[in-house]
């Protein structure tokens, strides 16, 4: 029986996780080691030349991490995956594999504020230029393509605005330009949205969020769709051209439909170094086994909280794609039919001060900078995650001064609503 025949939950529990060959341990062991003994000199040479599938050094691979990678790849329907220290590290490795100094990529303005910072500022040091486009206007993405554009980056469900992006329409722009579409699927998880089914070529995640679910471990991942021809025009030399740090091997020619993941591992992890810790990989694996159960409750609670807020007199607007009033309702029905996630925003009629009052007044919800925890979380982006942006950028990113972001947890929904009720006052 091949993997394609198994259901999502069976894969979430079993994919990549056979009993340990050395001990028979049923749970995936934490391989807390930095290095691995070679069988002999010939084996060592084969490993370093990438001729053999084996373990060398935990900066590049680790058996606990490998289970996590294989499992996420199976759930997303990809060919392979590479886990990293964080979601930001995953983004760094993706662009490191695709871009040379002077190259450009297009990203949509409606992104997690941390990604906007990474793309605008840190990436500048590598000579990588981001061109911003409007996720709601696909023609603005097409208009931003130049002969230096190497990729398009979007989020499936955008953080923090409760937006759902038209992945298929944007993938058509990418196809026409002959470049890959990268979709960050953190807020949706593969239970709610499968970007590869809609034309994505690469998926990234912050595993720290819903996939882990518990808010106790950092991690990120890159999933290779195995569906892009890296060799056709020499646009991606790290994949298609001889690599002098591996005896002039051509990674795409050698690794075919897992070449992108291999490149991120053997050049990205090897040389940039943002490896996930084995213990974090284990913690995330433990959370992943219950992914669909949690996401169902997250979405059910979120729908109720969003509806309650929409009916509240002190609330000016609610941005949740599960509400019929949302301009993204139809896209949500198409791309996230099980529910458009648990992160959304609302605006208070009292503006900035009212936002500060709510985050100060909550007793059950936690005021912090994270999403995708079992606990309900609240933040006021204008004073925190998006405070590095200009007011104009804040509004464009969907984070104006009156706006509050929620990440609804899996507590009893009546308790979440009661806490918000007393905090809004």
């Amino acid at each position: 029986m091949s993997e394609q025949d198994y259901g999502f939950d069976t894969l979430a529990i079993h994919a990549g996780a056979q009993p340990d060959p050395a001990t028979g341990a049923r749970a995936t062991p934490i391989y807390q080691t930095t290095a691995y003994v070679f069988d002999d000199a010939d084996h060592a040479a084969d490993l370093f030349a990438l001729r053999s599938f084996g373990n060398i050094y935990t900066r590049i691979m680790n058996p606990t991490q490998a289970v996590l990678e294989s499992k996420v790849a199976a759930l997303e329907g990809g060919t392979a995956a590479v886990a990293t220290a964080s979601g930001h590290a995953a983004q760094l490795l993706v662009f490191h594999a695709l871009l040379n100094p002077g190259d450009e990529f297009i990203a949509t303005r409606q992104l997690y504020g941390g990604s906007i910072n990474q793309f605008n500022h840190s990436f500048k040091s590598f000579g990588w230029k981001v061109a911003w486009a409007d996720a709601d206007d696909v023609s603005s993405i097409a208009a931003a393509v130049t002969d230096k554009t190497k990729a398009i980056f979007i989020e499936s469900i955008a953080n923090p605005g409760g937006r759902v992006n038209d992945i298929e329409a944007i993938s058509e722009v990418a196809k026409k330009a002959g470049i890959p579409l990268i979709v960050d699927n953190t807020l949706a998880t593969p239970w709610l949205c499968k970007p590869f089914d809609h034309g994505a070529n690469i998926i990234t995640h912050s595993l720290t969020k819903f996939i882990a679910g518990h808010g106790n471990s950092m991690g990120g991942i890159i999933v290779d769709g195995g569906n892009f021809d890296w060799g056709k025009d020499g646009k991606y030399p790290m994949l298609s051209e001889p690599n002098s740090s591996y005896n002039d091997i051509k990674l795409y020619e050698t690794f075919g439909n897992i070449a992108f993941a291999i490149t991120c591992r053997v050049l990205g992890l090897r040389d940039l170094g943002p490896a996930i810790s084995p213990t974090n990989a284990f913690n995330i694996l433990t959370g992943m086994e219950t992914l669909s159960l949690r996401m169902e409750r997250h979405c059910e609670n979120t729908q109720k909280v969003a509806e309650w807020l929409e009916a509240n007199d002190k609330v000016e607007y609610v941005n949740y794609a599960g509400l019929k009033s949302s301009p993204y309702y139809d896209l949500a029905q198409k791309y996230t039919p099980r529910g458009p996630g648990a992160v959304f925003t609302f605006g208070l009629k009292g503006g900035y001060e009212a936002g500060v009052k709510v985050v100060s007044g909550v007793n059950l919800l936690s005021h912090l900078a994270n999403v995708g925890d079992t606990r309900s979380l609240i933040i006021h982006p204008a004073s925190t995650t998006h405070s590095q942006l200009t007011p104009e950028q804040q509004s464009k990113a969907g984070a104006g001064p009156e706006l509050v972001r929620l990440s609804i947890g899996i507590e009893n929904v009546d308790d979440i609503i009661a806490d918000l009720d007393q905090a809004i006052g």
Partner: protein
Amino acid sequence: MDHTTYSNAYISDILQSVKTIALVGASAKEVRPSYFVMKYLLDKGYKVIPINPGMAGKELLGQMVYASLSDVPEPIDMVDIFRNSDAAGPITDEALTLDPLPKVIWMQLSVHNEEAAAKAEKAGLKVVMDRCPKMEYGKLSGEWARVGGSTGNISSKKQSMHESGKMQSLGLAPK
């Protein structure tokens, strides 16, 4: 048969039954995929006979190189074709003149030749196209997951170590 997908059982039966593999298009260049595959299959215990007219009479990875399949002085279980799709036609034709006949014609990643496949199947051979035996061995053994690959398998049985006893070498589960 349909060659768009193969069951694990089909691939596993082939990799567990063949012992001698003629690798057509073998290369002495250590970075070529054909070199990678030859080295890997040797490490997994297969006898691999390299075929390359330009290197006939020399040794590659300790194995004698022959100019053509017809020159190989022993029975061949599987012909692994590392040439382009057009070349796979005459190579398959030559394989079908061998006595005894090989059991399997295997065409590497991106190599397809429906006509050659049909001829070989008519003669009772099994055919695999557009696949790599190293990758398929890795998926079936579980080694593929070490590089983050989705193996296509799940199992509650523990992984099998390879019979060589090498620490990092996984084998195919006994049938």
